[in-house]
């Protein structure tokens, strides 16, 4: 190893001597040749690797990482810093929503749509819409289920909105935080090609929640089978977007850890859907045991259990 070190020092000496002798000589920066060789390497290999390149993104992923660092240069206590997170146009937001609902196999959501311009508009307002959609749909669904029953008294149950808001916003911010921390920790142990910034993960999670908005509206239909089919369908769609996003980030790691990470991501996503369905939507064809209210003729109401 000592000889290797001496060899490296000799190389540096040569370069320094050359430069000292001819200071006007043009120097070629080192990163370009490396990039070109990486591109050629990627293209010359068999087509199986091409979809990995697609998943990794375009060739200038290094450049976009650098640009991302340069873009947000305003200090964090100025208003302009936060404006950089809202630097999206209408069509961009709509494109990202479309990309989260229709996962294209082989395309990475982050590289394709976010392209190092993560925004906070989408996650924040999708979460807000989801909170109110779930609360309103749950209320409507319960109303229709119990319509016509003499003992039922409609109550708006406004408290549920606060609970919905806490749950959904916590999911949309804490889970990305945990995942980002975990990926950073694994990055320090295993050299991963793909790494995401915290905001990009928040972005993916926020947009992946969009599919639950029409699902929540359709959950008004008081059929158990329909509801579960809808839940599975939306879970598959948005879960696949998440899986395709995070698989390249953990692929180079230990097999079991990679699978465990992806499994946890999907499991938490499923838990959110199932939890919302169970808590906000009463089971259809089950009498609502709100209170033991004696019926008007003196006998207690017998609840018919499923």
């Amino acid at each position, binding site marked *: 190893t000592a000889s290797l070190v001496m060899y490296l020092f000799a190389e540096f000496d040569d370069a320094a001597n050359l430069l000292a002798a001819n200071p006007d000589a043009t120097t070629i920066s080192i990163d370009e040749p490396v990039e070109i060789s990486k591109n050629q390497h990627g293209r010359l290999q068999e087509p199986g690797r091409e979809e990995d390149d697609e998943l990794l993104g375009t060739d200038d992923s290094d450049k976009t990482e650098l640009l991302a660092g340069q873009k947000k240069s305003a200090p964090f206590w100025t208003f302009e810093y936060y*404006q950089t997170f*809202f630097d999206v*146009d*209408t069509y961009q*937001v709509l494109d990202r929503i479309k990309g989260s609902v229709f996962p294209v196999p082989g395309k990475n959501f982050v590289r394709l749509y976010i392209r190092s311009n993560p925004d906070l508009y989408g996650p924040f*307002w999708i979460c807000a819409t989801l909170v109110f959609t779930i609360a309103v749909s749950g209320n409507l669904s319960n109303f229709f289920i119990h319509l016509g029953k003499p003992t039922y008294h409609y*109550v*708006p149950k406004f408290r549920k909105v606060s609970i919905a808001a806490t749950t959904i916003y916590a999911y949309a911010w804490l889970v990305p935080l945990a995942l980002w921390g975990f990926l950073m920790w694994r990055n320090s142990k295993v050299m991963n090609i793909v790494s995401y910034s915290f905001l990009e993960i928040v972005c993916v999670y926020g947009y992946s929640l969009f599919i639950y908005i029409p699902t929540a509206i359709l959950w008004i239909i008081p059929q158990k089978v329909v509801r579960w089919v809808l839940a599975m369908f939306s879970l598959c769609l948005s879960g696949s977007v998440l899986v395709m996003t995070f698989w390249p980030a953990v692929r180079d790691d230990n097999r079991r850890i990679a699978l465990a990470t992806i499994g946890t991501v999907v499991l938490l996503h499923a838990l959110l859907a199932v939890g919302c369905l169970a808590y906000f939507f009463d089971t259809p064809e089950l009498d609502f045991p709100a209170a033991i209210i004696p019926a008007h003729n003196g006998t207690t109401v017998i609840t018919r259990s499923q």
Partner: protein
Amino acid sequence: FAGLADVSISEDIPVEGEITVPVGSRSPDEDYSTLDEPVKDTIMRDLKAVAKKFVHVMYPKKSSALLRDWDLWGPLVLCVSLALMLQGGSADSKDDGGPQFAEVFVIIWFGAVVITVNSKLLGGTISFFQSLCVLGYCVLPLTVAMLVCRLVLLAGSGTVSFIIRLIVVVAMFGWSMLASTAFLADSQPPNRKALVVYPIFLFYFVISWMILTFTPQ
């Protein structure tokens, strides 16, 4: 005065004007003297400004009165009256009822602040309090709807009354949206208008929902 040597006024341009200040214009002296006016005048002046803005909301035209002379009295009055009317919905237990006073208050003010911050972050040119003023004043149609709903509910709470309430709330929701977008849309960057209008839609939708689902004790 060497620099003024080459300045000359052409002979055929008449120079005219008035030196005396016409009586009745607002001179700085007059501002100080509002301290001495009767309290009734002060209150009436503010009330008239608020009433003028209410009229502007009910007949939204492109006028800058709402934006230029913003005030938050109108929104406060509307918010408090709406929260008072929404309070005390039917509840078997405290957790099952409609929104409490504090909840309505927080939703309206916090919602308006969030929408304003959102529009400013997206690059809007409107100032913070102007936007709050517009959003607050445009709650007026929904307050009217709440009043109508309560009156209809006094008459009965069957299907007919529900349909009447639904029509009234939907109409007033549309009015609020029209009024607020008429005032706010111009100050947004053109390719982000939908991004700014959508949260306003959500805000008024939530308020309309609270009004529609209000059931009395």
